[in-house]
């Protein structure tokens, strides 16, 4: 069995104890709620999308809700990673992160720019790699990301 130190890296515990970008955004920011049916966790993702010269940009993001260390730290790191990025870059990052989680992606999904996926930087998020060794926790790690996609779909 994989050791717990693979799962509970210091950076993960840090984001769990001190989550970044906690809070809410008022409308017209998009808001989606994600549920983990397994454990009852709920996560709120708020994104503000603004049009810029190079297309839509995630100008602000906030995260609410409750969850375990993995879902909360993943949400916190995600919020840092996507703030200020173009929506296209954010979608690419989601794809990249799901790859890290060994999740099969829908290759026919043309909304994702594969060149951007190549160049996407996971940074701190790499710390979540250990989750793959604990398959039941993958859903925890991806909860915020799927909720983010729902929020982006609303603002599209």
């Amino acid at each position, binding site marked *: 069995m994989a050791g*717990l130190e693979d799962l509970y890296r210091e950076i993960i515990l840090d984001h769990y104890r001190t989550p970044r970008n906690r809070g809410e955004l008022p409308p017209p920011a998009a808001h989606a709620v994600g549920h983990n049916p397994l454990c009852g966790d709920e996560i709120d993702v708020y994104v503000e999308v603004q049009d810029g010269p190079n297309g839509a940009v995630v100008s602000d993001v906030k995260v609410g809700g409750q969850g375990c260390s993995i879902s909360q730290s993943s949400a916190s790191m995600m919020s840092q990673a996507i703030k200020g990025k173009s929506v296209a870059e954010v979608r690419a990052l989601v794809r990249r992160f799901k790859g890290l989680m060994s999740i099969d992606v829908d290759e026919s999904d043309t909304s994702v720019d594969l060149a951007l996926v190549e160049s996407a930087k996971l940074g701190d998020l790499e710390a979540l790699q250990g989750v793959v060794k604990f398959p039941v926790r993958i859903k925890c790690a991806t909860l915020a990301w799927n909720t983010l996609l729902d929020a982006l779909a609303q603002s599209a």
Partner: protein
Amino acid sequence: MATRHSGDAAMSLDVAAVRADFPIFDRLIDGQPIVYLDSANTTQKPQSVIDAMSTFMATAYAPINRSAYRLAAEATDAFEAARSATQKFINARRAHEVVFTKNATESLNLIVRSWGYANLHAGDVVLLTHMEHHANIVPWHQLAAERGIVLRWVPLTADGQLDLTNLAPLLDGAKAFSFTAMSNVLGTITPVRELCAAAHAAGAIAIVDGCQYVPHNVTDVQAWDADFLAFSSHKLCGPSGIGMLWGRETLLDAMPPFLGGGNMIADVRLDGFTTAPLPAKFEAGTPPIIEAIGLHAALQFLSSLGMANVRDHEMQISAYALRSLTERFGDDITIHGPTNVEARGATFSFAFRDIHPHDLSQVLDQRNVCVRAGHHCAKPLMRLLGAPATARASFYIYNDESEVDILADALDSASDIFGT
């Protein structure tokens, strides 16, 4: 099988002997034994159940109710013997009041779909409680959406018992009162006999969800004066795939069938059908035959231990768990539900420091301590507790006090990781 469960005077069960009957406990994970504290979810299986099912398949398997050859007649007898054993286990009046389903969830859905559709109309009231499992909530919500019935709820006291102060007004005008005999989250045992009497006094029928109660206590549906009882085989040492519904004969007789198909009919013509008598009326299609054989062995196994002994054992382990966990962890642990062992079973939902239950169960798993983390299919109750999830340790006949200590040690290692 030899009975080795005489036990001594001080202990109600000889746990070491009981444990020896469960082959899964021979398995080591990472070189360590399994500390299985998830029996409220589903129980482990004794060798006698495993043997009964495999021997039946190897030597006696055949269809039931359909064929005249000896093998089929024997299989039918074995299947019906499981029904009689179930009848005795819950002290029902007649064997044909016992209907085999897929699980307790299906039993409860059968009641709602059959009795509910035949008897409930817009505005009719059904009383539930705040500590119900989703299986005793969602089917009623479905009926409410389709028929416009009205649901009322019995609230809880601060220590997680039913607050019966306003029971009479809540029951006023109700047609059914459906409640659990024991909460799968709080461990609370409800006063079933009193609740049945109150329901009847108000002109309502009493439906008991016995999932968590029947595997752990002496059950007597006649003494309760209940109208329906739903429970599952997999929570009482039997196989998954078979559930039980007991119903009062007069009610079952008057109810329309639930599923249609083979076995449930007396006659089928081009222009319609007539139903078979009980219990076949509610057993459409090929039933869980092998599972019924396993269920029978499980009921025999529990009966050989004695359900009063099972209850005593669980009260002892509950007293020990409550005392030792609160002494050791003080305010760092919050155990939900009653603190009096007379009012509860050995199922403990708890919060430990600020550690999320998912993280707790992950750390406990490192020591092979199996607990459930989550909402326990009781989201309305979880909202009342103000926790989206709890960790839950549930003890059964094969658990002893040393496993409470292992749980406590494992909790300590969780605080090491989370530094709380």
